[in-house]
Every structure is written in structure tokens, then in C-alpha cells.
């Protein structure tokens, strides 16, 4: 082996080892376990396609519900997050805005906070009797607010609101992308008499499209795996939550594995999610050819 190749492999060895032990190995193990019945005390028993059959045929009634709830969450949270973070970035990018860095800090901060702590705060905000939201509704509108977390639809809306609250991470990426929009294109559009909307639509958006696409893909992959916030709401004091309305896909997997001790079924569910993510990402890439413009 060439010296350079040898050096290359010795330097990347920590990652390569980790890749084998924590990625490739577990992927293969999980694929195998998906075809078994396995409780952690016993050894896995091969059951063929039984797990997948039980998923598809809906023997686990939670499955289709969790798919529906999760997709609904993705469809609501991802576009709203994109719109809010892009709008905030566009506004902060306007020439000569004062206090830009203060606003940026304020918007960015929530996305960094530990979910355990922000989860407790939000469970108080949505508390029907003593929560911030319903007390504001009481003061401003003079009516009793709804039981946010018990309602089959509003509970999901609450989860979406919390997700959109963390729009700051996406905003920072958009801000960086906006720095990269070439000034000469803007000036050329201005000379040609394009108004603000036309410049936005025909210069900013195409130039920014790779960043929008990146945020879309990462947002989608993240939202499909939403877990902690729903789990915390479920186990946190003083909040009662409509369990089936927020039984997200990964929460369902978690319950099968670590509560019901059905690791085989949980692995099968995880692989279904993995394949679904692959397909959805591939579809996005396919669709992106029509609207994402990569520079030369």
C-alpha cells in the first residue's frame, strides 16, 4: 500500500472503527432482528416476514395512526418552519436594519435550549387552567381557552408551534445563504427595472434555492423522527396529553422496544422508517431538479 494511503487510513481509523461498530454493524443487526421475535432476555427467533406482515395488516393499531400523525406533523411543521425562518432571514438581511445582531440572537436562542427544559415550559404554556396561553386568552378575549393538549387536533398543533418556535437554526443558514447572493445579479436586475418582488422572485429565490432545499431535506428528516418533546409532554407533571394524537412514529418504536420489549418488531418499524426516508429524500431530489439552481 502506498505510504499516503496508509497514513490516510491510520488517521481516519477512529471514524472508520466507529462507522463499523456504530453504523454498519447495528444496521445489519437491526435488519436481521427485523425478521425475528426478540425480547432482550431471550435470544432472537426467526419469524420471517411476520413483523412486516403485522405492520402492513395493521395488527398493531398504533402503527397507521402514528404514520398519519407523523406525516401531518411533517406537512405542518416543515413548511411553516421554512416560511418563518426564511422570512426572518430576509427581513434581517434588509440593508441598514438597526439592532440586527440583537434580533438574530433573540430568534436563534430558542433553537438551542435543552428540550427537557423547554418541554416543561411549553407544557405549562399549554396547561388548560394555569397555562400562559389560556390565561392570556381569558384576559384578552374573556373566554375560556380550549384544552389544548387533550384535543385530538390541537395537541398536534401545539407540537407544531413548539417546532416553529425553534426556527432560528434554519434562519441562520438562510442568512448565510443570503450573503452568498451575488450583488451584481441584484444590480443588473435593478438596472433592468425589476421591482422588489421581481428581484425576490427571480434573483433571490433561485440563488437561494440550494439552501432552501437543504433546509427542506434536513427539516423533513428531523420532523419524521420527532420524539423527545412528545415523550416529555407525556411524562411531565401537570400536563395531560392526548396520547394517540401525539403518538409519533419514533415514539411508537420506542414503546415497542423499550416498554413492550418487542425488539424485533421495533427494528422492523425502524427499517420501514429508514426506507421511507430514503424514498422521500430521493423524491425530493428528483423534484428539486425543477426548482433548485446550482451555480456554475
Amino acid at each position, binding site marked *: 500500500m502506498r505510504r499516503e494511503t496508509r497514513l490516510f487510513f491510520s488517521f481516519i481509523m477512529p471514524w472508520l472503527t466507529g462507522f463499523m461498530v456504530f453504523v454498519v454493524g447495528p444496521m445489519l443487526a437491526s435488519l436481521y432482528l427485523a425478521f425475528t421475535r426478540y425480547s432482550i432476555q431471550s435470544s432472537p427467533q426467526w419469524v420471517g416476514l411476520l413483523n412486516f406482515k403485522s405492520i402492513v395488516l395493521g395488527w398493531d393499531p398504533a402503527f397507521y395512526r402514528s404514520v398519519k400523525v407523523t406525516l401531518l406533523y411533517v406537512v405542518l411543521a416543515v413548511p411553516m418552519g421554512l416560511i418563518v425562518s426564511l422570512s426572518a432571514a430576509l427581513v434581517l438581511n434588509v440593508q441598514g436594519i438597526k439592532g440586527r445582531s440583537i434580533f438574530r440572537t433573540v430568534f436563534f436562542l430558542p433553537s438551542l435550549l435543552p428540550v*427537557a427544559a423547554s418541554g416543561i415550559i411549553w407544557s405549562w404554556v399549554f396547561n388548560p387552567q394555569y397555562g400562559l396561553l389560556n390565561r392570556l386568552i381569558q384576559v384578552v378575549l374573556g373566554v375560556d381557552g380550549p384544552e389544548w393538549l387533550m384535543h385530538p387536533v390541537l395537541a398536534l398543533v401545539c407540537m407544531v408551534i413548539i417546532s416553529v418556535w425553534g426556527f432560528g437554526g434554519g434562519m441562520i443558514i438562510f442568512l448565510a445563504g443570503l450573503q452568498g447572493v451575488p450583488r451584481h445579479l441584484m444590480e443588473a436586475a435593478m438596472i433592468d427595472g425589476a421591482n422588489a418582488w421581481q428581484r425576490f422572485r427571480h434573483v433571490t429565490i433561485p440563488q437561494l434555492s440550494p439552501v432552501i432545499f437543504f433546509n427542506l431535506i434536513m427539516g423533513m428528516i428531523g420532523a419524521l423522527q420527532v420524539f423527545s418533546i412528545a415523550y416529555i409532554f407525556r411524562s411531565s407533571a401537570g400536563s395531560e396529553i392526548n396520547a394517540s394524537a401525539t403518538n409519533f412514529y419514533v415514539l411508537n418504536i420506542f414503546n415497542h422496544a423499550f416498554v413492550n420489549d418487542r425488539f424485533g418488531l421495533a*427494528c422492523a418499524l425502524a427499517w420501514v422508517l429508514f426506507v421511507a426516508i430514503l424514498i422521500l429524500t430521493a423524491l425530493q431530489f428528483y423534484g428539486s431538479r425543477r426548482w433548485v439552481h446550482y451555480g456554475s
Partner: protein
Amino acid sequence: MGARSVGRILIYVCLLATSCITLLPLFATISTSLKELSEVYVEPPTMVPHVIKWSNYYQALTTFPFVKYLFNTLIVVAFSIVGTLSSCTLVAYGFARFRCRWNKWLFTAMLSTMMLPGIVTSIPTFIMFTRYLGWYDTLYPLWVPSFFASPFYVFLLTQFFRGLPQELLDAARIDGCNELAVLWRVVVPLSKPALATVAVFSFMGHWNDYLGPLLYLQDPDKFTLALGLTRFLSTSNVELYGTAWNLMMAASLVVMLPIVVLFFFAQRSFIEGITLTGIKG
């Protein structure tokens, strides 16, 4: 007044309104954390507490083993940062420096693992750690993987290393440094900002981590702050106090505080780190 200044005013109104909505839950939390429990339930709600009760913080931090959880968290965070920095620096230097036909291929493979849903690998990893290594209810599963480099940080550092002036590295080589010495004496000192970014992200990731402790920790003595916060406050507190929102808010704020402080001191690192992933990704 021209259309331009109307637009300006509209922009500031939007920015201020969004700031208020974003910060309102946090302000209300601070206010609640300083109230007497009876005032928490008072109608109509008060924005500023009548009596500011700082002792809530003392009470919140003594009703659950805060110091113990802080200590556990700091162990995880410290080992993780050491592991992440050392392993990711080596790996990133490998990818940035050495040309061979595997380089591009493995780099792509590494980046694509970032898209893997964590739950697929975390179940077999859980079985491996608990059944075969006997690490259930220990802190090891939370920090040992850090020593095997994470793709996100390797990517970040690789980008940075590639941008360093190669003449400096070559000069060191001509002076007889081997690759490790070049990395340690030249690359690392030049890369302090990037390494700081990685350390900051690693701190935040492990301080905030919820799923890891949830999976692996059973004994309340071993809890980290993130887990202890939700667990403790959800069980024993209810029986003790009813729902002691003021104490729960105080404890939550204390757990948030290090992240907020870190953010204000290292804002540049946060922004650069996030930016780098978005642009080159």
C-alpha cells in the same frame, strides 16, 4: 413620509412582534419562577411577581439532587468534548490532507450517515452496550461513542483544514516534522476557532441530550440534568407540592442557563458552525 420609511417601520414592527412572541414563554417562565406558589394561580395573572421569591431557586435545586445530576452531566460533557476533539481532529486531518482513491468515497459515505434515522442504529447499539458490555445504568454509553468521531464535526473541521495555507504545512514538513507533529504544532494552533466551534457544539449536544440518558439510565443517582429535570419533577414533586410550577420553572431555567451563557459568549462559533453545514452541505 415616503413608502420607504413606511416599509422600514413595518419591518421593525414585525421584528419586535416576533421577538415578543419568541421571548414571551421565557419571560413568563422567569416571572413564574420567582412567584409565591399562591400567586402562580392568582386571577388575573400577574406579569411581575408581587414578592420576588429568590428562595424558589434554592428550594428547586434542593428538592432534587441537583449537584449530583450536575456532576453526572459534567462527566459526560467533559469526556465527550475530549473524545470529540481528539478523534475528529485526527479524522478530519486524514480527509483533508491525504489523497487516495478511497478518500472521496469514504467522505461521501460518512456524510450520508448523517441522514440515517438514529432509531435504526440505536436499538442494536442499545443491545450491544447493555447485553454484551454490561453498560446499562452507567454513563459510558453516553460518552464513549464520542471517541469515534462524529460526521458533522469531521465535516466542519475538514472544510476548515482544507482552507489553511498549505505553505505553512509544507514548511513544517521540510523542517522534518512527521504528519502528527504537523497536525499538533501547525494545524491545531491555526484552527482554534474551528475547534472551539466543535467544542461548543459538543457541549451543547451532550448537555441537551435527552434520548441517550433516557435509554441507558435507570438508577436516579446516575441521571443527567436533562433527564433528572423531567423525571424528578414529574414524579415526586406532584405528591409533595401539587404542581409546583414555580419550582419547576426555576429548575428548568437553571438547566437552560449554561446554554444561554455559552451562547452569549460564543455566538460567533454557533453561527459559523451552523452556517458551514448549511452552505457546503
